[in-house]
């Protein structure tokens, strides 16, 4: 039995940690036949060393596009980063040329992709793929690379890594493939790990294993992490800070405690309320006989309404909400950890 801890809990205080990644007003668009979709429309957040930032929101709200933009892996055409800055240790990644960016990728900033099956190459053994990642960034002999790969597989809990290293992806279970992805992403000790739905395809028991693994590794090396998920339970357990996205924009952000105890945007509230509670719910909430829902569906990104993007599904909507798009405004907290919402109402 183990209980769950965040790094900040371990230290017992709000550690003064350094800002390692700053995303400023990021805008990424896709040019489609029907028009231009601004999939990420001015998103900003900071990522701190040793901390985990969670990004949540409905399917299509721009979570993966945000992370692919940081990695500079947006397919062009049809996509393009059309604005903003991505500062890694103070330097704007958008100014880097392809060669410089290759050095950053995997080495400094690493990513676990949403679909493990599509990101592992089926015709190479998992060993080959990890070794290639290591060889690309580290000046090691073939033998040393292989040993390092075995060490990484052991680290992520693959049994008998010495023999498993020569397996092909299809010979592994989904959970094991996901762990191989993590091993690969971590093989060069990145400063920032972006994990895009790392456990969504997995069973809860395996999910618990993987999340614990990520936490352990983070504690050990002080890595910063961006965790993308639509499971609010996972966010509550793993993240220090949360960004809630809706239709390409940040609609609420703050510390994990603030977001869960004091959600102030109608969308965040709606999301939290649509989760079923259990009879013996540890949160102390009473079991619901009927789930609360957010009516309607997300707007078409090609035909966004004037004003607040959430207006058609919002139970608090006023006329003013339809006039102009609300700004993100800080309602609590300080510069380091502001609690901000994109809503004109105080609910």
């Amino acid at each position, binding site marked *: 039995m*183990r209980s769950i801890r965040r790094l900040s809990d371990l230290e017992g205080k709000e550690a003064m940690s350094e800002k390692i990644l700053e995303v400023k007003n990021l805008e990424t668009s896709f040019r489609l036949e029907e028009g231009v979709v601004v999939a990420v429309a001015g998103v900003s957040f900071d990522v701190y060393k040793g901390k985990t930032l969670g990004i949540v929101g409905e399917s299509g709200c721009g979570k993966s596009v945000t992370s692919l933009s940081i990695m500079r892996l947006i397919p062009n055409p049809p996509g393009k980063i059309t604005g903003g800055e991505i500062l890694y240790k103070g330097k704007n990644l958008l100014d880097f040329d392809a060669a410089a960016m290759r050095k950053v990728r995997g080495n400094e900033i690493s990513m676990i992709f949403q679909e493990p099956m599509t990101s592992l190459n089926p015709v190479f053994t998992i060993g080959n793929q990890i070794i290639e990642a290591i060889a690309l960034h580290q000046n090691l002999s073939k033998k040393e690379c292989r040993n390092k790969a075995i060490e990484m597989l052991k680290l992520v809990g693959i049994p008998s890594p010495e023999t498993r290293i020569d397996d092909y992806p299809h010979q592994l279970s989904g959970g094991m493939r996901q762990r191989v992805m993590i091993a690969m992403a971590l093989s060069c000790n990145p400063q920032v790990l972006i994990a895009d739905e790392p456990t969504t395809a997995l069973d809860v028991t395996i999910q*618990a294993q993987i999340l614990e693994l990520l936490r352990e590794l983070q504690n050990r090396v002080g890595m910063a992490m961006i965790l993308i998920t639509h499971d609010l339970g996972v966010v509550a357990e793993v993240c220090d800070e949360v960004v809630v996205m809706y239709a390409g924009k940040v609609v609420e952000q703050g510390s994990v405690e603030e977001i869960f105890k004091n959600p102030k945007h109608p969308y965040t509230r709606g999301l939290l309320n649509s989760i079923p509670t*259990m009879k013996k*719910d540890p949160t102390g909430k009473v079991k619901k006989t*009927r789930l609360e829902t957010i009516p309607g569906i997300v707007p078409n990104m090609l035909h966004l309404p004037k004003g607040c993007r959430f207006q058609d599904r919002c139970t608090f909507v006023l006329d003013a909400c339809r006039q102009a798009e609300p700004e993100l405004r800080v309602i609590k907290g300080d510069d380091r950890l502001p609690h901000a919402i994109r809503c004109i109402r105080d609910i």
Partner: protein
Amino acid sequence: MSTQSNDGEILLSVKNLVKRFPIKGGILNREVATVRAVSDVSFDIRKGETLGLVGESGCGKSTLGRSILRLIEPTSGNIFFKGQDITKLGADEMRRLRRRMQIIFQDPYAALNPRMTVEQILSEPLEIHGLAESREAKRKRIFQLMDLVGLRRESISRYPHEFSGGQRQRICIARALAVEPEFIVCDEPVSALDVSIQAQIVNLLQDLQKELGLTYLFIAHDLKVVEHISTRVAVMYLGKIVETAESEVLYENPQHPYTRALLSAIPIPDPTIKKERIILRGDVPSPINPPAGCYFHPRCPIATQKCQEVWPKLYEINGESKIHRAACLYADRKDGPDEGILSSR
């Protein structure tokens, strides 16, 4: 199962259901191995109730659900629907009976023909089962179905790709309801949907159940959703039911170590709660070559030598509920510990 709580007529009774898939290979294409997808599963579902079925990927939930409708043929065992053994029915009789038993799938994208409009999709079952006498009657019925599941009538001529995932799942539900079934297998109907949309569909299924007196087998891997919607829950592991109880009893007093691990692994949306978690170690075993003894023993935190030798049956559990059973030697058993059944397949 012999002992049941509650009253109410048994609508569906599954007895000793087995489904094996042969794996063929070699130059002679002979059977080289067998996937034991469902092994000796028995349960009853009463009219108007929802039996939740949970368990990890590959444990046999979909195979069980499909075998019940004979969309795949069970290897052995019996399925009684309203007292009639449907494993004995011929193809024609079975087709007629399918009106009463429907299924909704996980992936609302794959389940709908992209070249058919909503009208065509909903007409099909009505025509197959001769349920619409005239064009007007058919249209009326289609509108009725669309109202029932909350689709706008004006979208009747639209194609599946013009709908969101949640709306597509509504079309699938409408199609299942078209033939007025009594029993629906819901195979992960909300797993592919966002939480906000998931809640809409769960509510819809519950409303329809009340309104139309439906009975569900609800397959899902989200234990919170399962507890919310189910009257009773069965937990499956590697093709077998390892625990079954009334929903509240199962979540309050889980007896099988696997159920306990599952429940402890649910992430709780409250950052101030530090949950004690059972982290399972060890590999998930394969249904091609299941381990001897209790199938769970390689991952079980409390396994003993005996667990590797003895195959536990579903023992009755001490407590109020007559239908609480668990297949663990060390569960709180009514009959006290015994030797179980010697490992045999």
